């Protein structure tokens, strides 16, 4: 990496980090795992004057259970997410999906908070956060606030975070008993972002759908939740025809950008495929 020169800061606490962000202003960037920021700096697309490295703030790492809440520190690495026993038992979609993120080297450094805070619709955690009804804890100069995932992602590289805010925690609740889940991700190769991906969480009650989330990665300016597709299935006993209808509804909200992975038509069609496959896999796991 051969970036222009920059100042490097390594705060030891959230307060110190927020203070630095506040005093340095818009020329500062937070360095979490670095797997989005450093490639941009390497290409000199991003040329921050200050890097605020939050890797040495202990309270930002790890998973805690507080009552019904499962609190994931923003600096918890993908590797730690994959290995965490609480997440595997209560919110198994997260570790399962994290295995599909990039490659082992990236997962060793890359963090759940960095993935979410970057606001890139190609990242996987935004759609996963929507599927898990996650709530973001944001600390800024004016204190702490809670932002639900549904209000967090505002546009491409644009989130509810202000310049001086730090995302500190992601809070989720355990899946309903017996819920099935799946994350289907079509990608060109290991390490690539999704051409199209879909997360599904589904719970059944007496054979009918009692809880469902269908969310999409890299199919619009932000991660998307396919509410209309969910409505098709909610309360129903699922069959192949309903799954196809739900996929069609999900495809309607897709607005992907054309790139070397494919044009909008292809990516939208792949969204349909991923939705169907994710629903089928989630149903197979549901009890």
């Amino acid at each position: 990496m051969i970036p222009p020169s920059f100042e490097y800061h390594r705060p030891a606490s959230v307060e110190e980090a927020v203070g630095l962000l506040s005093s340095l202003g818009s020329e500062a960037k937070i360095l979490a795992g670095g797997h989005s920021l450093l490639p941009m700096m390497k290409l000199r697309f991003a040329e921050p004057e200050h890097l605020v490295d939050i890797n040495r703030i202990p309270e930002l790492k790890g998973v805690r259970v507080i009552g019904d809440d499962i609190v994931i520190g923003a600096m918890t690495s993908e590797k730690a997410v994959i290995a965490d026993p609480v997440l595997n038992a209560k919110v198994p979609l997260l570790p399962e999906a994290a295995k599909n993120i990039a490659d082992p080297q990236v997962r060793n450094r890359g963090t759940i908070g960095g993935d979410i805070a970057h606001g890139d619709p190609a990242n996987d955690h935004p759609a996963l956060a929507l599927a898990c009804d996650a709530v973001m804890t944001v600390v800024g100069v004016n204190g702490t606030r809670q932002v639900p995932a549904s209000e967090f992602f505002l546009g491409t590289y644009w989130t509810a975070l202000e310049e001086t805010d730090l995302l500190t925690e992601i809070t989720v609740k355990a899946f309903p008993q017996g819920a099935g889940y799946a994350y289907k991700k079509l990608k060109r190769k290991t390490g690539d972002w999704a051409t199209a991906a879909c997360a599904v969480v589904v719970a059944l009650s007496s054979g009918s759908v009692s809880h469902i989330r269908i969310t999409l990665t890299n199919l619009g300016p932000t991660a998307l939740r396919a509410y209309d597709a969910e409505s098709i299935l909610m309360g129903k006993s699922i069959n192949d025809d309903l799954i196809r209808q739900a996929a069609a509804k999900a495809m309607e909200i897709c607005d992907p950008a054309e790139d070397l992975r494919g044009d909008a038509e292809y990516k939208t069609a792949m969204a349909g495929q991923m939705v169907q496959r994710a629903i089928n896999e989630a149903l197979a796991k549901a009890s």
Partner: protein
Amino acid sequence: MNAPVKTLEERKTELQGMGDSRLRKEDARFIQGKGQYCDDIKLPGMLHMDIVRSPVAHGRIKKINKDPAMAIPGVHAVLTADDLKPLNLHWMPTLAGDVAAVLADEKVHFQMQEVAIVIADDRYIAADAVEAVEVEYEELPVVIDPYKAIEPDAPVLREDLAGKTEGAHGPRDHHNHIFTWEAGDKSAADDAFATAPVTVSQHMHYPRVHPCPLETCGCVASFDPVKGELTTWMTSQAPHVVRTVVSMLSGVPESKVRIISPDIGGGFGNKVGVYPGYVCAIVSSIVLGRPVKWSEDRIENISTTAFARDYHMDGHLAATEDGKILGLKVDVVADHGAFDACADPTKFPAGLFHICSGSYDIPAAHCSVKGVYTNKAPGGVAYRCSFRVTEAVYLIERMVDVLAQKLDMDKAEIRRKNFIRKEQFPYTSAFGFEYDSGDYHTALEKVLDAVDYKALRAEQEQKRNDPNCPTLMGIGLVTFTEVVGAGPSKICDILGVGMFDSCEIRIHPTGSAIARMGTITQGQGHQTTYAQIIASELGIPSEVIQVEEGDTSTAPYGLGTYGSRSTPVAGAAIAMAARKIHAKAKKIAAHLLEVAEGDLDWEIDRFKVRGNEEQFKTMADIAWAAYNQPPEGLEPGLEAVHYYDPPNFTYPFGIYLCVVDIDKGTGESSIRRFYALDDCGTRINPMIIDGQIHGGLTEGFAVAMGQQMPFDEQGNLMGNTLMDYFLPTAVETPTWETDYTVTPSPHHPIGAKGVAESPHVGSIPTFNSAVVDAFAHLGVTHMDMPHTSYRVWKKLKEEGIQL
């Protein structure tokens, strides 16, 4: 007590010679991270170079302002074409008889072309300075399509060639035309087509790809102003040729130029040529009197240094109604980019493309290759077959499939019918190649039996009849013949230097040895396999034979490693040098044993007196004697040099079969099975052969299924990072099954043919054949690569197939 007498087998095993899958000598350092690559070279006072590159693909340079860059502390120099002009170094000759700009002279011809260089204290300052150099361009119309390049009103790309109607390879009939090269007998081929009952034609594009070695190109140039000596460490597959070129360009006597290729992290043809970066680093070092390092980054490597392929081909076959091929015609438009920078033998501007009659007995054939300039980077040397054999094999294997489809014949059957038969070797093709040896029928049946071809076809039939089957199944079959080991100097030279290679072996007094060759390993494992050849020839354990290559001050002159030429050419030189030593050793043994040479028999590691088992001298005994008590009239010492000029090429072959399952919903291809049978003649180290084959198949998989260098209309190369450019990891890579037959080359001293390129050359059309086969029942005869999910999905859609 006497040591137990070793059996013959034990003595042979201890040598770890030819045929032994001994571990690679190289790996101890590589797996510990102790390799010494170009970028590891750090010299006192070393400066760093970085390159200002053109953002436009075709434009006139209006103005260059160096001042803001020169104002940055730590910047030593900024050089442009104007600075190189007084040295006459702003252009350089290419290995293909053209010239290439070192730094863009008034015009840029491709995106990321070298426009200026910056020399600074460190790499960071250099990169800052590159951004600070201000260049003003007037954009010119861009030509990306080679067919459009040769339309009458196409923009003139190479103004420096204005008025030149004669190129290095014959007449030029258009300002963007480089050469037209033909082989075979046109009128015989035309006659065959005029009377044949069946003809087929197919247009195909073999896309531009890049070999993308793990280590990018680079060098460290160090000129000693006191001694007037230039030493350059360089990622070069051909250090001796580079030394000759550098001497010719710089005027420094060849004896004072030393090129060292250190460990090389993969070449695949990307590291054959001489790049502007090398020239500029050398000039800078001479001018500044300090060492200068240049290391490409990944984007620079993919965008500017030797690409591969970019052949637009029209193939035609004429045949009888029962599938006997009567004639072949091929017309190629070859996109060479902005400069013709191939590295083919001088007489062959399209390399050995005329091997395109393949493994088949085709009575009449003709091919024509037209080289064309476009606004793309130069190259065409790479990859894993620098001499266009990849394109040739792709062409003929595709055409045979197309013909089989037309005649509703099985792919295996049509090949059986047209193979050159075992008893026809040595066989002279319609293009004039003399195939040395082969047994294609035996190899084909071995593969078909191994995979149960009939059962695969039955399964495919059943799946095609099942509308609910979620996949399309395709079976690819390729039966290729390669031509490698360039080459006989009567027809092969580069810059006038014959394409021989060399070996020097020195046996030390205590019986170990050092050997040096004109080739250079880049992952092939020469330090292991070359030692194994010597071990078997001289009875010295390969473990104590040191192999050194790549330093032009110590190694004998050779043309380097590319085109699978190391074993066919240098391997032969090694055997011949060893045999010279063997002959001298015999004289010494006779002297020591006090018998006539004619009374001695060689046995693994010793000369024995015939009829007296107790009387013998081992090679170690002889080595000591060579320095201690040589016979009267014989020079002391035990060493030899051999320069080997091969009498012919070698012709390795293989039979590859691939089964693919294509997801009807996503277009994803899953390689269920890939069976590769290779015949490379005598096998030196089966483990290394397997490694070579695995690597070549993996790179073939990459090319067929994902690699591409797409350009937009403005000449922007899209996808020049590893984010987009497909390098398969272990996750994507299929499981390979390998097999072999052994048909030695009759003209090679040890019967070896070379293997490194076969798996690449052979596998790419095999994957292609499998994917097309999945669609064959719909009447599809050809699909251009790469078979990415997206492109295959578009085909599924076009054919009305969905889940």
